[in-house]
């Protein structure tokens, strides 16, 4: 420990506690596998997900060696569709969450820090948005707009996701804005921007990160729900939701069509939530333990 380390915050204890958390390892393992499948889908998938292999002989085949997760009613390989579906579902969810978290955090922090009319306007918009269920809002927008591209769908999902985070960040900002260390920074002559980015945001961001991680699961569910209703990702592009939708009418005999994408959703959402909870615990500075137990702190002299 020398002069060089002054001014650089050591994250080792936060990171250390995250790594040693069993939930985190499991969740990261699961999400890592899901992400690898999504990235390397073209290499891993045994078949073209859109290819109808043999509509007369290979329709609705149960799992076998040739088709580990069976085939669907159009004789397409379910494993390949699931892998490509992972790509679509995960990308949509991650991009939507990233956009909504960034926007929501910015808006919430500004509303909370600036206060007054800005705060009132932003929060009334959020209140209004909260009073309409997201799924209903999406259904109405989609009904008015008609066919949606995946990009538009992502933007829509981001559009309904930012309120929670902005309200959360605003509440945190309000509490932090009057904290003595923020007053101290102002007293030192720090600019408003510096106070916001150095003092308010780093302390308010924890809850936003947790909320964003938890909302990845929600967005996956929302996208799956919309696709299941036939208004999300349109076939033949596979997504977890629309594969389930295809199987929903024949749940009793073609069960593999709903079971496997359903499991994929379950496991992924579960992993996201576990990661979110672990992050919440790890980011709470009050839970930090002294990093150097072997070197007790002493006064000079």
């Amino acid at each position, binding site marked *: 420990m020398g002069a060089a*380390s002054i*001014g*650089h915050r050591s994250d080792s204890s936060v990171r250390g506690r995250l790594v040693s958390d069993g939930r985190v390892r499991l969740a990261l393992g699961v999400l890592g596998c899901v992400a690898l499948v999504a990235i390397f889908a073209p290499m891993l998938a045994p078949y073209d997900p859109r290819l109808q292999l043999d509509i007369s002989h290979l329709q609705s085949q149960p799992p076998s060696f040739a088709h580990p997760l069976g085939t669907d009613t159009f004789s397409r390989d379910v494993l390949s569709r699931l892998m490509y579906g992972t790509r679509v579902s995960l990308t949509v969810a991650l991009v939507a969450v990233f956009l909504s978290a960034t926007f929501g955090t910015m808006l919430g922090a500004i509303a909370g820090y600036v206060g007054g009319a800005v705060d009132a306007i932003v929060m009334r918009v959020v209140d209004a948005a909260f009073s309409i269920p997201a799924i209903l809002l999406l259904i109405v927008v989609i009904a008015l707009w008609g066919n949606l591209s995946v990009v538009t769908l992502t933007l829509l999902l981001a559009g309904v996701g930012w309120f929670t985070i902005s309200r959360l960040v605003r509440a945190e900002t309000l509490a932090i804005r009057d904290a*003595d260390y923020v007053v101290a920074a102002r*007293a*030192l002559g720090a600019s408003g921007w510096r106070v916001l980015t150095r003092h308010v945001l*780093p302390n308010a961001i924890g809850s936003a990160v947790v909320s964003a991680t938890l909302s990845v699961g929600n967005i996956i569910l929302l996208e799956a729900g919309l696709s299941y209703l036939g208004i999300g990702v349109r076939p033949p592009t596979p997504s977890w939701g629309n594969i389930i939708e295809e199987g929903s009418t024949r749940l009793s005999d073609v069960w593999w069509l709903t079971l496997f994408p359903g499991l994929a959703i379950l496991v992924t959402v579960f992993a996201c939530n576990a990661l979110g909870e672990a992050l919440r615990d790890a980011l709470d500075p009050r839970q930090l333990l002294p990093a150097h137990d072997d070197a007790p702190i002493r006064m000079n002299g």
Partner: protein
Amino acid sequence: MTLLSVRDLTKHFPIKRGIFGQVSGQVRAVDGVSFDVAAGETLALVGESGCGKSTTGRAVLRLIEPTSGSVQFDGNDVLSLGAGDLRRLRRKMQIVFQDPFSSLNPRMSIGAIVREGLTIHGLAEGAAADARVNQLLEEVGLRPEYASRSPHEFSGGQRQRVGIARALSVEPTFIVCDEPVSALDVSVQAQVVNLLQDLQRDRGLAYLFIAHDLSVVEHIANRVAVMYLGHIVELAAVDDLYGTPIMPYTQALLSAVPAPDPGVKRERILLAGDVPSPANPPSGCVFHPRCQHPARDAACATIVPPLEEKAPGHWAACIKQPPTTVSWEAQKEAGGTNPPDFFLPRAALHRSVDATTAH
């Protein structure tokens, strides 16, 4: 030389009601406060919780925007400065907080906390800044190796030292100490008070020392201002105030200071009732409903007592303690029945015996 000059400083907080925030009243937290602080001097501001002492401290630094009044600091009109000029002036006037736990950003190392002022004002960069941070930490009695540690690894007293180092980093001439020791253990209080005194001696700092512990104040202050409900009711050199408290409120406060010797039986002046709400302060003298002065009468409820010089350098606001500029005729006109008559109860004097033997 007068460093800080505060005149008629007022801070009213609006009371908002309803969904549209109609203003239904004003909390008169600070109501026409005037005082000077000389370079290198410690002026203590004492009073009960909620009397407006912290608000005064923050309004002087413009961390709270005052409602009216004037603040002159080192030739600058603080209240009329633009944002940029105010930020530059902040180098010269700093603040140390009461709560050592909320006053340090939990996500910064203490090195980064002490370093921030250097960066903001461009005082030092890179290795020079590191060296300066180390020097500041040493000066407040912390080991430089601690620079990379987080605030949560330190005790209250150590955190308070970090807060002091942060204030010192920009080389101020004036520091508002907002109850800097009242959250600390008694043994640690002494260390921090001694540190503040050493720094004052070495650097010629002026302090506005806000406190409610009269024993600490007696130890550190040159002059003391007593606040009650947003007003300064007495202002005097520490020996004069502790020796001859004039304002009946000050007398009551001093009689409540615990005696260091448990064998000594103390007389106390017990005040009736609670401190009135600053949203609806009493008319006339704000202290009159609780006052124990034998000459208290109807005039006290109508005449606002001016803060006047009762003895050289000893200012107090009471129309019943002679000499007063509010004549007996004027008091009678306001319904007064008892002429001014000097009153100094034994209970309030107790302290002066201690003080004279100590000096």
